């Protein structure tokens, strides 16, 4: 009996060791970048290397967050841009997709053709739209504007948002709406007073997922912005030239750039998992 228990104890320890090993391997780029961001420049460049910072310093964070005015790379601005673009995209996507999903699912309008066409849009590589949208944006003066990037990211995220919203709406009880309809409520008031309050988890899921997707977006951020609307992903790639590869600063900038991902996975894990699996598995 006792031997069985010690065996179990050892088996547990082995699982924990393997788990930690796998987590460390998969997160190694992130861990080593965060470590580098706290190292002094001289310790980054010395050989033999040290994985952990010997004399931790915040100098790179200060340099990145309070750049001298002569520098062409304005990190705080990129940070603000990315926040605005990601927040704006989340709101716009919810505003556009929630009513549409309701129409697809409950009014059964457009469910046969428009809905599948939209959801499957994500099988098409985005780069196809890069050139015509670039030319179109030039024509209507949306190049280098935050609104332009919000609009684009919203379209990119429509398939995912619709998939998640319709999935949630399918699970809503029919009785509530029927009762409201019998009481004479219009479609709009049903949407506003019945559906909307019940959809809060779905709205959180879509909002968080779209925020992350937009924050992570790079290709269109690069094509459609010149200076004023540069998102953080593009801004960080510009560092290499500006500081003649100041790896400490780049590491600090990356560490700041992945903060939303870390916050969301730690505090909104359930929403993210729900959204990501719904986006992939349609039962």
């Amino acid at each position, binding site marked *: 009996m006792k031997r069985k228990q010690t065996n179990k104890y050892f088996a547990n320890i082995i699982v924990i060791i393997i788990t930690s090993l796998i987590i460390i391997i998969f997160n190694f780029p992130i861990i080593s970048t965060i470590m580098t961001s706290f190292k002094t420049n001289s310790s980054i460049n010395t050989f033999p290397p040290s994985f952990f910072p010997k004399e931790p310093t915040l100098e790179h964070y200060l340099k990145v967050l309070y750049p001298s005015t002569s520098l062409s790379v304005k990190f705080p601005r990129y940070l603000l841009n990315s926040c605005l673009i990601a927040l704006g995209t989340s709101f716009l996507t919810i505003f556009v997709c929630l009513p549409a999903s309701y129409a697809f699912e409950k009014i059964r309008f457009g469910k046969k053709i428009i809905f599948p066409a*939209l959801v499957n849009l994500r099988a098409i590589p985005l780069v196809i739209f890069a050139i015509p949208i670039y030319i179109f944006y030039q024509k209507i003066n949306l190049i280098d504007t935050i609104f332009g990037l919000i609009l684009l990211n919203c379209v990119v995220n429509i398939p995912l948002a619709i998939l998640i919203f319709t999935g949630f709406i399918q699970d809503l009880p029919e009785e509530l709406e029927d009762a409201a309809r019998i009481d004479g409520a219009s479609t709009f008031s049903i949407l506003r007073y019945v559906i909307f309050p019940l959809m809060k988890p779905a709205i959180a899921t879509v909002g968080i997922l779209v925020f992350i997707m937009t924050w992570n977006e790079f290709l269109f951020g690069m094509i459609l912005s010149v200076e004023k609307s540069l998102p953080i992903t593009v801004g960080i790639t510009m560092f290499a030239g500006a500081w003649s590869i100041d790896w400490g600063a780049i590491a600090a900038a990356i560490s700041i750039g992945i903060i939303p991902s870390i916050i969301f996975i730690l505090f909104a894990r359930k929403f993210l998992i729900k959204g990501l699996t719904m986006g992939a598995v349609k039962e």
Partner: protein
Amino acid sequence: MVNKPQKKSLEFFSKYILLIPLLLLIAIMIVYPLIRNIYMSFFDVKWGKIQEFCGIKNYLNVLIDQGFWESMLFSLKFSITVTLLEIFFGLLLAVYFDKFLSRNQWIIAFFLLPMLVPPVLTGIMFKLMLNSFVGIVPQYLQLFGVNLNFLSVKGVIPTLIFADFIQWTPFTFLIIYSALQTIPISLYEAAKIDGANSPQIFNNIVLPLLLPSIGISSFLRFIEAFRTFDVIYALTGGGPGNKTTTISIYIYKAAFERGNFSQAVVSSIFLLIFALIPLYISMKFILRGSEYE
């Protein structure tokens, strides 16, 4: 009573109104650009300025362009490799950690973090970690007398595959793991009572039930890997030479580095034609369950 018909027509319109913002956006940002793309493909376009009609000359130019076919082939090989690797290890991790993670749910957060980080930053992180000047990995290897250049002509493709693997295995893991959670315990118990051993249970019960999610995650990984841009652009910029140029990088460079919009537009039309195959598969299989019979 008098305003009842009016109210009805309002109801009738309201369902259209619900869809109008969405349809408007799609029309402006998807349909119009596609039509515009096809129109532009018959003209000589330099730096976004349409110059003169030139028939199918652009199409022929792309068809005989070696770079186009090379990048298509690279995208194809790259996406097949990473999909197979990620599915295999995603399945392995999901099955191995099934019980452990359902007891310690919060640990999943650390499994998923890599896929939530901006891909372009993953690329730069790999550069930071692997470059031969200050990279922590080559430096430690050097301490053991191993000299490896991860970004050399020889090492760059395995490095890119590994970067994609690190970032997206969490995704295949998550999908397969979630599917695993939906298998009722009673099935395992029934099989055990009937005297089945673990490999038998896995082969005859678990694997068949996981097949749909394995299929969907391979499909999604394949199409996403095929159009990879961020990681490779950050890590190698498509080089050395054109060695790691994916089709997305090829189109981007044609348009925004060389200013050859014609070439980029026509390449993207060819890409669209190729993308119709996965689109068809997606329409046919992935949404099948949601349609009303």
